[in-house]
């Protein structure tokens, strides 16, 4: 499945058809090497999972991709264009949205206002679009509540649909299923699948819950101490020796 | 919904019409009501110390007039029954403008339109007087301004309603240039605060010095709110001036004197403005006040009509002992007296006539002579008669009987050294050193 005609020897799509490519990125904080020569590629319309123990550099990788941190070495390409040196808002406007490990909605604003923050200024019917998205997230009834008053799950949904507000194509989700109840978890995953299948959105998710990763991702990448140790289908990764060693200490 | 809007618009119309039709009902006037004279003073904020003195003077004047019908030295004005004229007492309405020009403007609106004062006194400090001059002009209110010395307020503005009672800044350092030239001084240094009054003061001082052939080797401004004066004085003293002129306010004179003492600054004469004439100055710097000169606009020892009586009255009414007297108090008293003379001359509260009198009269008050430029002059209202004095703190001489108006703080006596005909002592030149 991985090998086909228009792929190079490492298995990545040729001719810049990968929607997102990270090439040989290194990021250091003083003496700590958070990312060491990491290269990954994300295919359009797929769900890619990112796993690894705590401190493996998952969030740092997200931060490098979305411009919060600037890579010390290496480059990030989005649809074949170099976005390494862009500012976070420029990257977001190109179509990469993200959520955070700690929910970062705006608690003292209403749900609707939260969505409006992400609206394009020139967009005429931003309000209608926001309502549509709220419907998608099942939050229409809460549109005038302060976001800080929502349940954790609702806040996660809000954060997710907020990215859709500016039509992001690639969504980087940091622990989307953490801290919410199983029902909400299912709903969230269903939403992700729907977006993926129907609207062709690309997802890149950090997740600790192996069931989520194994059951829903098309491809999984495993990081450890800032290095990529495995990559492939969930099954391949699951059976990878290095991954097993990292996770089970064997 | 359209009808709702219609109703609202109609409502608006009704309210508007009602508002315009309803006349501002004025209460019926009582027959014997006091003559109201209004002013705003800096009772809080940065000029509050002087504002308080001005207020004292006004209150002393008011009390005297209400008690016996005339104030010290103005018996010749007649009307010796209590009250200003027609047995009507004076009520001075004083508001606090927080040393803020905008508040001053607001308050003069209030005084004129709401309290319906008959006449006005000027505020303290040139900045606020500049701001309110437009208001009194617009409402055509005769105003005696005795707290603003900046000539710029009158110069070229052809004011029609406000007169200057006190000396303009040109009169602030009288005779320094003259004395210095006599003593053979060659150079002078000027340090001043960068605000309206010190700037205009120092400009005229500079002119006086240059006219006498004394070279100004350094003229330096310092911003408001400076705390340490040693550097600026070190710089000034490095130019080795014979005359050191310093323009600023009260705290500056203390700080600069202390700095001069610390540096053992050596010059022929030190001249200060505003602060150094005050009793508190001597208390704060002690013996360092020796031979320090300061401008003075009025002294208790002057031979003006009613001066002695005025000193007694201030002691009785405001509790200010004669030996601690301060000319800022006399500002207020002067304002009162000018109005008193004008009103009694006219014999009625006729604003235009009072204004004409204020601009035309040529009189002697407790404060000294008074005359302003006439209405048709471009600088109308500008004071021309009143002259300034120069004082110097000198050691108290043993066995000398000082007149009651002489200010004596501890071992230090405030002596007038200029003009020569009024001098009570010879100037000390050069500065005797700091030991």
């Amino acid at each position, binding site marked *: 499945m991985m090998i086909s005609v228009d792929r190079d020897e490492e298995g990545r799509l040729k001719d810049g058809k990968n929607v997102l490519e990270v090439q040989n990125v290194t990021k250091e904080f003083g003496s700590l090497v958070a990312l060491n020569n990491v290269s990954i590629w994300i295919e359009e319309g797929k769900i890619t999972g990112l796993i690894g123990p705590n401190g493996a550099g998952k969030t740092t990788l997200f931060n490098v991709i979305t411009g919060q941190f600037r890579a010390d070495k290496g480059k990030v390409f989005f649809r074949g264009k170099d976005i390494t040196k862009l500012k976070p808002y420029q990257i977001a406007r190109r179509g990469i949205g993200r959520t955070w490990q700690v929910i970062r909605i705006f608690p003292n604003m209403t749900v609707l206002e939260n969505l409006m923050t992400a609206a394009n200024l020139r967009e005429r019917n931003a309000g209608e679009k926001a309502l549509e998205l709220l419907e998608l997230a099942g939050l229409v009834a809460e549109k005038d509540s302060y976001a800080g008053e929502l349940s954790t799950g609702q806040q996660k949904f809000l954060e997710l649909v907020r990215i859709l507000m500016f039509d992001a194509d690639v969504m980087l989700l940091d622990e989307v299923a953490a801290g919410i109840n199983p029902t909400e978890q299912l709903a969230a995953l269903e939403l992700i699948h729907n977006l993926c299948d129907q609207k062709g959105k690309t997802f890149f998710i950090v997740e600790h819950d192996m069931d989520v990763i194994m059951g829903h991702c098309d491809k999984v990448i495993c990081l450890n101490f800032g290095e990529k140790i495995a990559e492939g289908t969930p099954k391949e990764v699951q059976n990878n020796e290095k991954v097993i060693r990292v996770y089970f200490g064997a | 919904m359209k009808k709702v809007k219609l109703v609202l618009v109609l409502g608006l119309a009704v309210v508007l019409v009602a508002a315009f039709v309803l006349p501002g009902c004025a209460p019926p006037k009582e027959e014997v009501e006091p003559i109201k004279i209004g002013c705003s003073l800096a009772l809080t*904020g940065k000029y509050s110390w002087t504002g308080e003195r001005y207020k004292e003077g006004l209150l002393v004047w008011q009390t005297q007039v209400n008690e016996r019908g005339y104030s010290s030295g103005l018996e010749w004005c007649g009307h010796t029954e209590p009250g200003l004229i027609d047995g009507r007492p004076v009520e001075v309405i004083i508001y606090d403008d927080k040393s803020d020009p905008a508040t001053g403007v607001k308050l003069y609106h209030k005084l004129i339109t709401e309290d319906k004062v008959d006449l006005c006194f000027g505020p303290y400090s040139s900045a606020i007087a500049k701001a309110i001059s437009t208001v009194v002009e617009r409402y055509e209110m005769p105003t005696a301004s005795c707290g603003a010395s900046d000539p710029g307020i009158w110069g070229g503005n052809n004011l029609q309603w406000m007169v200057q009672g006190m000396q303009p800044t040109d009169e602030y350092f009288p005779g320094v240039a003259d004395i210095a030239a006599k003593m053979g001084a060659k150079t002078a240094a000027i340090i001043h605060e960068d605000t309206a009054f010190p700037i205009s003061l120092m400009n005229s001082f500079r002119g006086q010095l240059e006219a006498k052939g004394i070279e100004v080797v350094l003229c330096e401004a310092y911003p408001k709110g400076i705390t*340490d004066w*040693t*550097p600026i004085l*070190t710089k000034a003293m490095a130019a080795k001036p014979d005359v050191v002129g310093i323009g600023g306010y009260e705290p500056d004179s203390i700080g600069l004197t*202390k700095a001069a003492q*610390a*540096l053992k600054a050596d010059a022929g004469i030190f001249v200060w403005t505003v602060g150094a004439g005050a009793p508190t100055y001597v208390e704060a710097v002690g013996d360092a006040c020796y031979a320090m000169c300061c401008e003075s606009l009025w002294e208790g020892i002057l031979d003006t009509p009613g001066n002695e009586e005025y000193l007694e009255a201030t002691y009785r009414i405001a509790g200010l002992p004669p030996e601690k007297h301060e000319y800022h108090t006399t500002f207020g008293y002067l304002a009162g007296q000018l109005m008193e003379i004008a009103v009694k001359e006219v014999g009625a509260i006729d604003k235009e006539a009072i204004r004409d009198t204020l601009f035309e009269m040529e009189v002697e008050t407790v404060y000294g002579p008074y005359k302003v430029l006439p209405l048709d002059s471009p600088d109308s209202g500008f004071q021309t008669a009143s002259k300034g004095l120069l004082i110097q703190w000198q050691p108290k001489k043993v066995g000398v009987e000082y007149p009651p108006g002489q200010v004596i703080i501890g071992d230090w006596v405030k002596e007038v050294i200029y003009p020569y005909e009024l001098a009570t002592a010879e100037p000390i030149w050069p500065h005797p050193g700091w030991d």
Partner: protein
Amino acid sequence: MELLIIALVEGILLGSVYGLGAMGLSLIFGIMRIINLVHGEFLMLGAFTCFWLWFLLGMNPIGATFVAMLVIAALAAFLYKVAIFRVVGKFPLLSRVLTFGLAIFLWNFSEFAFGSTFRSVNYPTGSIGFLGSYLSVNKIICFVVALIIAGVLFASLKWTRIGKALRAASQNPRVALISGINIHRIRLLSYAMGGALAGIAGGLIAIQWAIYPSIGQILILKCFAMVALGGLGSLPGALLGGVFLGIAESVGTMYWGATIAGVIAPLTVIAVFIFRPQGLWGVVERVD
């Protein structure tokens, strides 16, 4: 050249007293993360306490300065207990406006109680010759007092238990809380200590310059400049910032004039903030 050396020495003498006041502000900021706008009034009240003790009781001004320290420390502790603690750690504007209101109150209370007259402690001690000019012995005494106080403060912060707790709280309030330090006591203590430093600096100011109720408004802005130069929350930084400001004012006045010297401080602060936000000597830490 001689003029430059004189200016430098004058600047250091001046800056030490400035720095003492700024250290209090920095201490309070470091531990409570509030901008203590009432600090200027602490300085002013310290100055007046010193003045009244000298004027009414004939006390030695240097001794009176230490009494002023205690008085202002007590006042600060009182204010903390009554009001300040309620806004610590809240939206920063609240503490700003609260301390601003307190400052207006104290300032106008002093104006009401003492009158707006300018005063000064008359404590002449002569001058000593220095490079053809003179230095005031008074200033040298004040400098020595400031150094002793700063020394005692630094030593106690370094070696005593409570000092260590203070430093810990300053570096990271949350961690300090976890490690069992009573953060409220620490805050109370730091606020009182800030007041004490302001009180003593105020006393030294009363000896050197003229004082009046609104002087606090001028002094606090200078304190800001110093604290900013030294890095927010850093005590040695505040002292050095004070010395830097003193030198800048004194050298600037001699070479470019007092007006230019007046803008050196604020513009330096802005430049420092933009290019070196941790201050010139500051401890590297994020402050939000």
